């Protein structure tokens, strides 16, 4: 029994003809993209490739000049609250007067509805989300007193507490320590294994093959997309990164 109002309901994320422009030069050009449900997908590309812009446009934070986006067949407006979003850590002021648990509870504000304050139930769910990331002992810390990796884990806990089928993360591993990276990746893999779709803007090509099973290579246009073992090839990397490639590990002898 299918809902005919849905468009491409078999894709966790479906993007078609998406073009975004800041001023003269397009930041994203004619993006066609499909990410199936239940994968852990890396969005990679050089600096300025439009990785963050892509997810911001998908989430409706940036207005595209053309194209459309669907999550599980729905427009973004119908999927609010069912997508966990983790913005870049540096997008907020960490000196804001609030605690780690308070930030995590923000992930529940939408489900609470207008005028209602988070209560004991919200508190328990926030604590559980913090515990998933090993942060339960820091619940009452002021957020500026946390290390960068701990702040990132708090951000992830805020998305986790929504229990959403789709998670979208913007550079969650940028500037975090090795132990935080391991904790975050372990959690994301568990979420993937429980059927959720995890979409991650990722900057470290050396770890793409071990962390992810799906990838999108981007440089203003889509260079390649699909399972990592098919997409992570010297030709694609050269097409996406060009001269910057000397800095990057290239898989030996074509497809791995």
């Amino acid at each position: 029994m299918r809902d005919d109002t849905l468009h491409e309901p078999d894709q966790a994320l479906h993007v078609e003809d998406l073009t975004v422009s800041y001023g003269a030069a397009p930041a994203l050009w004619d993006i066609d993209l499909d990410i199936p449900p239940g994968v852990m997908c890396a969005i990679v590309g050089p600096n300025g490739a439009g990785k963050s812009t892509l997810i911001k446009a998908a989430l409706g934070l940036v207005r595209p000049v053309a194209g459309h986006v669907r999550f599980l067949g729905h427009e973004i407006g119908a999927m609010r609250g069912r997508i966990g979003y983790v913005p870049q850590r540096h997008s907020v002021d960490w000196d804001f007067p609030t605690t780690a648990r308070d930030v995590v509870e923000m992930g529940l504000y939408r489900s609470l509805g207008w005028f209602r304050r988070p209560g004991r139930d919200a508190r328990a769910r926030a604590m559980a989300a913090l515990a998933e990331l090993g942060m339960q002992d820091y619940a009452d810390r002021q957020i500026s007193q946390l290390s960068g990796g701990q702040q990132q884990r708090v951000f992830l806990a805020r998305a986790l507490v929504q229990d959403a089928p789709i998670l979208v993360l913007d550079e969650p591993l940028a500037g975090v320590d090795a132990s935080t990276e391991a904790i975050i990746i372990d959690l994301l893999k568990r979420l993937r294994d429980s059927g959720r779709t995890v979409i991650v803007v990722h900057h470290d090509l050396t770890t793409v093959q071990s962390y992810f099973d799906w990838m999108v290579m981007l440089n203003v246009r889509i260079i390649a997309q699909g399972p990592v073992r098919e997409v992570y090839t010297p030709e694609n990397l050269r097409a996406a990164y060009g001269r910057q490639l000397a800095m990057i590990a290239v898989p030996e002898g074509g497809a791995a």
Partner: protein
Amino acid sequence: MTMLADLMASQIVRTVLVGAAMLGAISGMLGAFAVLRRQSLLGDALAHAALPGVCLGFLVAGARDLGSILAGAFLTGSLAALAMMLITRTTRLKTDAALGIVLSVFFAVGVVLLTHVQATGGAASAGLASFLFGQAAAILVSDLWIMGGIGLVALGVVLALWKEFKLVSFDADFARAQGFPVTMLEAMLTIMVALAIVVGLQLVGVVLMVALLIAPAAAARQWTNRLGMMVALSALIGAGSGAAGALISATTRGLATGPVVVLVATAAVLVSLALAPGRGLVWQALAARRARARISDGRILAAMQGLAEAHDDPHYPAEQGMLGAALGKAPAPGQFDALKRRGLIRAVTHAPEATPHWQLTPAGQRAARATGTDTGDKT
């Protein structure tokens, strides 16, 4: 105390006192959000942009009618906010440049209108200049009801939309991704700031009004790490500054209330910046000194351990002067005594030298090793 009682017996002083305290509370509460959203200077632009509205209100009403003057102030203030939003969205100018342009253009128009009205408007227009720096004595009891009403409405809105305002102030992108009407919530906060400014025009004036938005919030932030506490404290500091400023200016002839209120609020900021536990300068200086002392204790032990290792003798008697040379600077003599009291070193003699010598105890050796690994771990 009798002086205070005498002062309070005056109807004017009572009115000004209550008015200043209410204004401080309102602007303190709303200023906390403005400061956290890094919009404190927007308040300054709005306040300056109120001046042309004051003159227009006078021209339209043809008299010094407070209702039309405040309506005019609110109108041009809102127009300024709108102009700024349009400038930052449609041009490549950044917020600070847009603020500067809007503030100065609106204020210039205001001054031109003011001088024109004063030259042509006759006696009734004489009082308009008081809106530049405020004139507390002009406040009427009926004005207090307006202020109280606006204050209650603002308090009600803030309480009802508490979690939404908190979320928007902390992370507007996340709020938008969650489907909250972020633009509307931000507009509500800005409109309430504009209302607070309009309320404060008579008392503090357009030039200094922004101080009442920023100062209580900046002071309150020093004392607490909770948003609720910060907003409450900010309102309290604002009310206290208003009341204290009104009383001080009432005791002395020729002290304008508005500027005195601003000075009292600024004093609260200075005290808070210096003394608040955790974030205050004095507190941080003390903490830094304690940390320095701890490190140099550790360095003394590490230096002794190094000497012991170099001489292949765990009980090597290190001469005090030599330790000073090894550390680059002689530690205070009391520091060795303190280490001795903690059982980390013991005094020994090393004939024929008569100078003080020190030896690591087993506990001191453990402490030295712990210091070494500690600093090694700090990456």
